[in-house]
């Protein structure tokens, strides 16, 4: 799908190649982005990508952890901006086998470009074998967030980083 470019040199190119809404693509865990040093001086514009899904859309983010120990899937419904929401997480060993007993996880979210995290204190509880539920998350700024899922078990400690684009809508459009 493509929309033509306005026939005027002075006008901005408005390319609706990826018009909203559509579900976020499944993200695979990206390599570490040392956010602390990333963008110190350039003022990052707030603009969310046009592809950011509308609030209420079901999302599934997942992939392999950085050192390759685990596979995880984080499911939630795209929150309204600034609204508390919950996530469901499934974790297995990278092989697909069940986690060893006693595994623990934490789920956090930060905005590397703005060097801040969430202002709330979420709580993660076990929801079944290899399943966790996290309540009390809140993304108060539109734009790129990164969910950090830390898994710890006798198989070792490892982390997944899952980018997510928070849309700007705080009320239903």
């Amino acid at each position, binding site marked *: 799908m493509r*929309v033509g470019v306005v026939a005027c040199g002075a006008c901005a190119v408005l390319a609706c190649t990826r018009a909203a809404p559509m579900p976020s693509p499944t993200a695979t865990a990206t390599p570490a982005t040392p956010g602390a040093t990333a963008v110190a001086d350039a003022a990052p514009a707030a603009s969310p990508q046009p592809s950011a899904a509308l609030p209420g859309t079901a999302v599934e983010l997942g992939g392999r952890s950085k050192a390759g120990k685990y596979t995880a899937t984080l499911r939630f419904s795209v929150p309204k901006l600034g609204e508390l929401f919950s996530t469901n997480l499934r974790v297995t060993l990278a092989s697909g086998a069940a986690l060893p007993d006693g595994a623990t996880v934490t789920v956090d979210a930060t905005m590397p470009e703005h060097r*801040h995290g969430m202002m709330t*204190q979420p709580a993660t509880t076990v929801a079944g074998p290899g399943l966790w539920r996290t309540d009390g998350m809140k993304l108060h700024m539109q734009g790129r967030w990164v969910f950090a899922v830390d898994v710890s078990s006798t198989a070792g400690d490892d982390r997944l980083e899952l980018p997510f684009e928070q849309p*700007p809508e705080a009320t239903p459009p």
Partner: protein
Amino acid sequence: MTLPRTPLATAALVLLSLSAAACGQANDTPWTAPELRLILSLSPPPALAYSAGNRFADDDRAARLGQKLFFDKGLSRSGQIACATCHEPARFFTDGRARAKGVAETNRNAPTVMGTQNLPFVFHDGRKDSLWAQALGPLESDAEHAFDRTAAARHLAASYRTEYEAIFGSLPSQAEIAALPAQARPRPLDSTHPQARAWAAMAEPQRSAVTRAFVNIGKAIEAYERKLLPRPAPFDAYASALRRGDADAARMLDAPARQGLRAFIGAGGCVNCHNGPLLTDMAFHNLGLPPAAGVIGVDGGRSVGADQVRRDEFRCGTQWSDATPTAGACQELHYLNPQFEDFLGAFRTPTLRNVARTGPYMHAGQFATLAEVVGFYQTLPGRAQVGHRDLTLQRLPGSVQAQDLVAFLESLTGPLPEPRWLDPGG
């Protein structure tokens, strides 16, 4: 060409065709799809959210009683102070002063009441989690109404018994009221104060009956305040025209205001914090503001407020609140992180609706005009008095014209609430 049939996509399409017409005005570039989406996310002003802690919040009789109480100077020790003293309707429910003055000057600026209805935390430092609990603060503040709850119960019984009882049920009888000490209230920080001693000397049922009446003053006032929502402004007319794909959208907003909007959602980074239809993220940030002239000491802001709200006598889920924590209410309080490191010196992002009418600005009235506020964002002078300046803040790039941002902020002024809510009522 197939595009999803969403209003956004339609608006984007119309803009595309429009932009051809607008060509020639080099600085009136059409909005990109992400820009358009951001603009539409700021409008229209929000509808009321449910008030979990106050089952009278949407009771019109409570609103009419609350209206009278809001203007009633009888709810102050001196008989000179009402809520409306510092929240004057004609000034969009502010007082025009840098720092509010009741019995004495406070160290904070009086914010507008319009647009506070849906906030999870109120006051600049968020030390209250509902409007009804908030209203009880100034009544017992020594610098503001300097009242106490036995005097409040007595005043209610003398002036509003019939109306009150029709809504909230019975007040203590005349004999019971007559038996109350003249002035009594808890003072957790000053238990030897005569009012605190008088309170401690009362029997528990007496204390609860008085506190119940006091709490219901707050609940009636909240019901009234819920009539004071911000109303659509010229900016909303523009956003709504964009949403419809109206070819004449640009007529709704002057060119400088449109330029200011562009900076606000783009290079200026304002929308990072001033987002959503109230133009606030409802969160707390340390801007690293200069000290306010005449204020001694530093203000810890949210780091103090976050702690206070978790211990507040009237917080969500207490016996005075109508919310049942088990039913999923009180979540904001439950997941609040009081240790959040950036809370030191942070204050809540204020709504920018009607901001041109609510100066002076910032928590201690540091700036008299919007031009001064924008001047601050241009240079970000000095450093934070306590904690550190929010890392999201960046000096405005030279390409942003201060007067354009001011023009945009001025386009956020809507009409006052309906006239029947602007006086003590009848």
